[in-house]
């Protein structure tokens, strides 16, 4: 037996070598086989809610130009890992995206210079682009400015405000956490009269929904802290100054909700969406991109509005909606030259042709930072709200979650929030996930 094993290993070693040779042939062949003069595009899409729309517009482009465009969409919360496995393949994406400076850091060796591209030239504000450290190269171009806040159902709010003892008579009066809480508590109390199940939709922690809290909601206290400390780039650590306010708003979501917090672990984004669309809740934390799903679920444009998320931070009466981008296009430097060129052309077409513009603004619901979109008027009511808000003189909340140290940080925070929500964990765990974990993950990623 021992004898056979020794011999087996010898045989193995020999065979391994021969396969190595075979492998070399195989990969060389496939690299040649895929090359066509026109090049091709492979986009790894980050936004699952826009998956169908990207597919459709890609087919349209292929029909028009003959250039093949593949779009693959990563499932919620899996973009980093999908990108990693796709980049390792021989047919890697030619177009991918990063979520900001932190994301860019891990993909720097893959990002081509886009300073001569049409998309960069068309940017209304070229400072928005991600640049290399020396400022010479443009490595990422934002393509979507998005806005989130508290989406409300105008019908239900109207009905509430007609109640004799309503706390406010107009949505405009809600300009602080205290007012928001008073209204939400009141709606919850009168839920039977108003025909709702709760003031807020379920704060679901399924992976299709938990980013609304671990990323978007957590951004608000983070924004106030960084603003107070005048920090503009990713810090090594955070203090958690506004965590008490974070707790306030999260408690409110849980208390005045349609759903028992013990059930939140399995509630999905779809659940919250249908609760809101069926008129079972008045308030729904989400953003401009949610319109497509709400429309599909039967809501009409004049039914919805959006207001800022007030958490009780100082000076919040001037606080606007949260607007920013975590969507930067990057072209894969390691793709063939033809493919890179084809990708640039595809992007140019997306932002200048009528079809591309329509797809991006109305079908996907993006507010775009490009000059070519000046003539486009969106039929997305949430985008209209966002535009109105940006012109109102209020201070927009920036998207600081692009500075969050890692996906792991967000996941740990999400887990801690869920445990707190269902009563199986304490708020201290959330604090530690927010503050201690920041420093830890920052170091881990530094090393990696």
């Amino acid at each position, binding site marked *: 037996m021992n004898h056979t094993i020794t011999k087996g290993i010898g045989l193995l070693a020999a065979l391994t070598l021969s396969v190595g040779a075979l492998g070399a042939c195989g990969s060389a062949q496939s690299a040649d086989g895929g090359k066509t003069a026109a090049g091709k595009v492979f986009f790894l899409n980050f936004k699952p809610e826009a998956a169908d729309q990207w597919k459709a517009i890609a087919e349209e482009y292929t029909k028009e130009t003959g250039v093949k465009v593949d779009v693959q969409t990563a499932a919620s919360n899996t973009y980093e890992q999908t990108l990693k496995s796709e980049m390792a*393949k021989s047919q890697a994406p030619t177009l991918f995206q990063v979520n900001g400076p932190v994301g860019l850091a891990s993909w720097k060796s893959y990002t081509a210079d886009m300073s001569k591209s049409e998309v960069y030239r068309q940017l209304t504000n070229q400072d928005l682009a991600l640049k290399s450290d020396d400022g010479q190269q443009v490595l990422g171009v934002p393509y979507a400015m998005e806005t989130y806040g508290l989406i409300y159902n105008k019908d239900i709010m109207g009905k509430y405000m007609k109640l004799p003892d309503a706390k406010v008579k107009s949505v405009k009066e809600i300009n602080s956490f205290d007012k928001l809480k008073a209204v939400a508590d009141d709606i919850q109390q009168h839920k039977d009269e108003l025909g709702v199940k709760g003031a807020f939709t379920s704060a679901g922690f399924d992976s299709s929904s938990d980013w609304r809290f671990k990323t978007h909601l957590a951004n608000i206290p983070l924004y106030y802290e960084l603003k107070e400390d005048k920090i503009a780039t990713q810090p090594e650590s955070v203090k958690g100054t506004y965590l008490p306010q974070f707790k306030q708003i999260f408690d409110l979501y849980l208390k005045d909700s349609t759903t028992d917090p013990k059930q939140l672990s399995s509630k999905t984004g779809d659940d919250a969406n249908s609760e809101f669309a069926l008129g079972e809740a008045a308030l729904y934390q989400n953003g401009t991109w949610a319109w497509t799903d709400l429309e599909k679920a039967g809501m009409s444009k004049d039914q919805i509005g959006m207001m800022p998320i007030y958490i009780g931070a100082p000076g919040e009466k001037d606080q606007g909606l949260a607007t920013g981008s975590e969507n930067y296009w990057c072209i894969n430097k390691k793709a063939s030259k033809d493919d890179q060129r084809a990708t640039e052309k595809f992007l140019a077409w997306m932002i200048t042709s009528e079809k591309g513009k329509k797809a991006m603004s109305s079908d996907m619901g993006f507010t775009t930072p490009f000059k070519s979109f000046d003539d486009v008027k969106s039929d997305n009511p949430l985008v209209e709200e966002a535009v109105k808000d940006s012109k109102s003189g209020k201070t927009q909340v920036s998207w600081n979650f692009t500075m969050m140290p890692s996906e792991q940080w967000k996941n740990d925070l999400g887990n801690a929030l869920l445990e707190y929500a269902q009563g199986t964990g304490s708020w201290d765990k959330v604090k530690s996930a927010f503050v201690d974990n920041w420093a830890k993950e920052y170091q881990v990623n530094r090393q990696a």
Partner: protein
Amino acid sequence: MSEKTKKSGLWSVFFTLVSILWVFPLVLVLVNSFKNKAYISRNAFSIPVGRAFVGLENYRRGIERTDLIASFGWTVLITVGSVLLILICTSMCAWWIVRVDNWAARTLYVLFLFNMVVPFQMVMFTLSKLADMLGLNTPWGLCLVYLGFGAGLAVFIFTGVIKGIPRELEESAMIDGASIPRTFFGIVVPIMRPSIVSVAILEAMWIWNDFLLPYLTLDMRRFKTMSIAIQYLKGGYGSVDMGAMMGCLVLAIIPIVIFYLICQKYIIKGVLAGAVKG
């Protein structure tokens, strides 16, 4: 006597009840597949009537979103292709190992045995990487990967069977002038037939349902198996569409149930053959 019949009757009632409980999860999925998605997670046990009833809408959306028909085709192709390849190649290999029985044959056999105890996670990254480098990220390539990773069990079962076949049969055929391949396919294969069916069933059950190997190996832009398509429904669109999910689950279960009803006898034989797996 009558005491015994009565007891047996009671047991029949008992098992009937348990059987109903047993198929209940499947019935539940079937019922929910006709429900509006908003009503599924609210109350899984309500009957789809009135506003909640959506007819075949979930099936339509499920098929459309996951491209389930194509996935079904690929799954069939991968399963049939891999099983055929495994049957032909490993039975030949097993015969050679048993009859030649020199150091090389014995080493190979030990390696195949070793293959059977290695969990897939051990090789998931390296195997999918290698398969991609060699261009095996297509359904056809995947058949080769399955032949490689799944060879152990098939070789093991086949060698066991071949050891029991008297070699005199083969020798007399060869003396009569039959070539080696002719001897194998004309004499040995017919004797092995029952075990070939068993191995086919075992491997088919594994490959049809397998998730991680095709998920990591296949070029997902072009090919998805049914398991992958269903898993993709979760989170692949930023939300979990429970309606489409129910439709897809039913469509995934139906072919299996049909296959089971037709081939039950062979499936059970296959399971028993697999039970020798060490």
